[in-house]
């Protein structure tokens, strides 16, 4: 079934609008079962990439493969589903009618009652969509996306405009659902969402991927870690000469070593010197995000 193909293969994907290059030769492979955050500031090209991934927009160059076929095929067979930022709803239908109507467009779906339950809106099935809050409408879009039991779920900034509680409810619903092995790709500019819900983070900036790895790798990538220890009379020059050390700072009896390989530095300090009270801290994802998306890295 899905086992032989990646869930998503984007190859040299490019899209320009007039003189603006929204997506610039983007390459990405997502394996089945991954939960990937597409993280970047507004205007980084996330939505344009997702539109091409879903077959809503045509790339100027490059190719899109979804579950081994075209995006249109995946949509037609209910293998891919999406919660869009701009996906409209009919305001004069009820929540339940919207789900039942959409279900008729597929050959086979999960029962309407089940997706309403999974999306956490079973209690408002009879409410007119126009009277639902933004968060409730977003969960309705999520319920619609659950109908075909897709192999790949794509969400474009699904919690934009929700309050804190709404965001938490939404992610809980998504998490309950995703743990079963569905591939999930979501775009967000909320760092905490990427950090909390993704296995893998893809950082995009100006239509390109600037970093790609696990949350821990991304944090490490931008800033490395800082190893702090109490070491009176530290030999600053010797420490700075160790492999992987970016900077050494001595503050009284404390020494702070900025490094990409904190394990080796800690081992060195503990085995070769008199250092004690060793602390290793990583900079948080926000630092990594800012560093990678606002300045050119290793250009």
């Amino acid at each position: 079934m899905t086992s032989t193909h990646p869930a998503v293969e984007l190859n040299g994907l490019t899209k320009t609008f007039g003189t603006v290059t929204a997506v610039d030769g983007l390459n990405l492979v997502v394996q089945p079962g991954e939960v990937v955050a597409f993280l970047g500031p507004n205007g980084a090209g996330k939505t344009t990439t997702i539109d091409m991934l879903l077959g809503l927009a045509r790339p100027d160059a490059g190719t899109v493969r979804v579950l081994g076929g075209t995006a249109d095929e995946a949509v037609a067979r209910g293998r891919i589903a999406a919660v869009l930022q701009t996906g409209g709803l009919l305001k004069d239908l009820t929540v339940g009618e919207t789900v039942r109507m959409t279900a008729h467009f597929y050959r086979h779906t999960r029962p309407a009652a089940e997706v309403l339950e999974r999306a956490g809106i079973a209690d408002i099935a009879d409410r007119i969509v126009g009277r639902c809050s933004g968060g409730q409408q977003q969960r309705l879009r999520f319920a619609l996306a659950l109908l075909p039991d897709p192999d790949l779920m794509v969400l474009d900034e699904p919690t934009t405009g929700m309050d804190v509680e709404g965001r938490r409810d939404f992610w809980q619903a998504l998490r309950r659902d995703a743990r079963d092995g569905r591939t999930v790709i979501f775009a967000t500019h909320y760092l905490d969402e990427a950090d909390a819900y993704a296995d893998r983070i893809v950082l995009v900036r100006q239509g390109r991927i600037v970093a790609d790895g696990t949350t821990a790798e991304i944090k490490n990538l931008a800033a490395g870690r800082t190893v702090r220890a109490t070491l009176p009379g530290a030999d600053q020059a010797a420490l700075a000469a160790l492999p992987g050390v970016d900077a050494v700072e001595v503050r009284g009896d404390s020494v702070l070593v900025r490094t990409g390989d904190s394990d080796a530095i800690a081992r060195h300090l503990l085995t070769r010197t008199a250092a004690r009270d060793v602390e290793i801290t990583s900079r948080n994802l926000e630092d990594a995000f800012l560093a990678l998306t606002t300045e050119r890295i290793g250009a």
Partner: protein
Amino acid sequence: MSTLPATPAATRTDRPDRPTPPDRRLPALGGFAPAVLGIELRRVLRNRRTLAFTLIMPAVFFLIFGLPQRGQTLDNGRPVTAYVMISLAVYAAMVATTSAGGAVATERALGWSRQLRLTPLRPTAYVATKVATAMTLGLLAVVIEFVVGAAAGVRIPLDVWLLSGLAAWLGSLVFAAFGLFIGYLVPAENVMQFIGPILAVLAMFGGLFVPVEVLPHVLQQAAKFTPVYGMGELARAPLTGDGVSMAGVANMVFWTLAFGIGAARLFRRDTARV
């Protein structure tokens, strides 16, 4: 440095939550489902404005303008009230089908059409659903007008009821196409607010409010080229026994093609990817 190699999480190909994979075949008829019609109709009938303008107002028109002419007869002895009733049935059907077709404007404005592109529903099946909804609503409009007429004492032979009703209903297909045409032309949520007056003017030229013969000569000539003229003539022909002129038939064919082709072209433009 810039990009780390992709590090996929453990690849899970089996889905513990679903021992049997779901049915991934394409939907029959491109996703066109009669059950959707039921939901669409409920939705339309829930809208008080649509209800008032398409189903109730033409019936009230009959009571106001038709009933006072009770007892008067046409040249062939048939009641004038029947003439008014059939004319207003055509009007009711055209308003109903236009508003149902024009609903695509609202759905485009709301972004629902975009949402639909993420489902297996084919665009042609979507349009077919809209046309079917329009025609069901058109039929309902004709039936209501006739029921009100019959209840108010209109008596005509059964074949006139059936033929005139059928003509009024099928003729309104032109306006289902017109509604779609407008719907794909302007993405506005309240498109009927400006189509309504246009329909009223067209209905006047089609002789639905007063016979075309009472209009000034110039307007009578111009009326022959407007889109309601043909369908009005066709719907009243069984009653008046006048037959249908070539001009009337040509008029209907022309406008059906014009709006149909226009709607199809705009529809293709709308569904093309950018």
